[in-house]
């Protein structure tokens, strides 16, 4: 018998894991994307690495973290970030760099500083791809967070793995269904957020 308490506790654990990872990823990704604007080499390395890392199966990433940092919450966060960070960096960088050079020249011409150009011209231009990247990362994080239960992160995945070992359909579903619910919730909430923040933005 899986009580509602257990499911609720697992869901909270799961959410903490997802949002911690997402928050850290965004906090690291955006400075990294700006840094890439000033270093072609960094941009090249990041784009290359982002495309390569995208191809590696999540399970392999989660597994390789174990010999490197062990098991538990922190290794799980790092494993998820290895997959979720790069889509945000990549999309933000594309948004920042894909701006019409004439517009930048014009902005310089009317006397905007570098910082003002970044803040008022490049960043708003990057919003749509950036939020698309964040949404993608959120859904990816939710998905991998189920898997990281195998390396001791806790959360909804733990119920799933217990269910697999004990052949308990009840436990399997007690883990899987809330995870699906969270996926839909993340998708919808980030879509709504994206719409609100980028309304009036060119696509």
């Amino acid at each position, binding site marked *: 018998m899986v009580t509602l308490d257990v499911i609720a506790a697992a869901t909270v654990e799961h959410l903490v894991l997802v949002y911690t990872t997402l928050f850290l990823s965004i906090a690291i990704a955006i400075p990294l994307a700006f840094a890439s604007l000033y270093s072609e080499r960094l941009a090249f390395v990041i784009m290359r690495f982002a495309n390569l890392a995208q*191809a590696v199966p999540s*399970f392999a990433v989660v597994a390789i973290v174990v010999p490197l940092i062990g098991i538990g919450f922190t290794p799980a966060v790092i494993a998820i970030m290895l997959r979720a960070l790069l889509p945000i960096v990549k999309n933000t960088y594309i948004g920042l760099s894909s701006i019409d050079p004439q517009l930048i020249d014009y902005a310089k011409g009317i006397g905007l500083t570098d910082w003002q150009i970044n803040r008022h011209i490049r960043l708003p231009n990057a919003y749509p791809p950036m939020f698309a990247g964040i949404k993608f990362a959120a859904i990816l994080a939710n998905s991998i967070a189920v898997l990281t239960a195998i390396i001791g992160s806790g959360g909804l995945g733990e119920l799933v793995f217990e269910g697999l070992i004990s052949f308990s359909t009840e436990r399997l*579903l007690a883990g*899987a269904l809330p995870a699906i619910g969270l996926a839909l919730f993340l998708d919808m909430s980030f879509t709504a957020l994206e719409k609100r923040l980028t309304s009036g933005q060119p696509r």
Partner: protein
Amino acid sequence: MVAILYNIMDVWDTHLLTLRTFEHLYMFSIALFIATIIGISLGIFIYSRPGLANPVLNILNIVETIPDIALLVLLLPFFGLGAGPTIVASILYSILPIARNTYTGLKDVDHEYIYIAEGIGLSPKEILYRVRIPMSLPLIAGGVRIALVFTMGVVTLGGLIAAGGLGTALQTGIYLYEIDTILVAGIWTGILAVILDGFAGIAEKKITARFGSW
């Protein structure tokens, strides 16, 4: 150096990694093959019935957000443990990128080509098969490449539900906390995925060079 190599070979033999690799590629090929056929057919179908395009793509989008393990779990009651649900889940994930790219490709062929095709007397069906589909191949190839990555990911998870493949070795390594096993199986899985993606990238470039507009 020699010791490391010896360790790797030891892990490789103990965990039957040659067999696991074949199992892995077997599930992968079947899933990707079926997903490609379904995806392209579905893409053509929703192109020919534009009213269905958005509903179908929205449903597939929802499937896409479901965590992969949760999807595997949902399929267990219908397909039991093993390769069956793994292949089905891979297909479900892979249909979207292929169908969506096929649909977008067919729809977005430069209007000028359609116009001249009509002008020289091609029927709608001939325009679809002689112009729209060939000119969409670069985009379709891009969709298949995305599907390939999805499929590799799900097939690896199959190890958790007794499907065999490289995920089995990863699972054993984690449960028994065998560092060597995790490293060898994990790195090999990553390399295999990157190599296949690399080949797909080359194929995509070739197809784009051959069929793309300029």
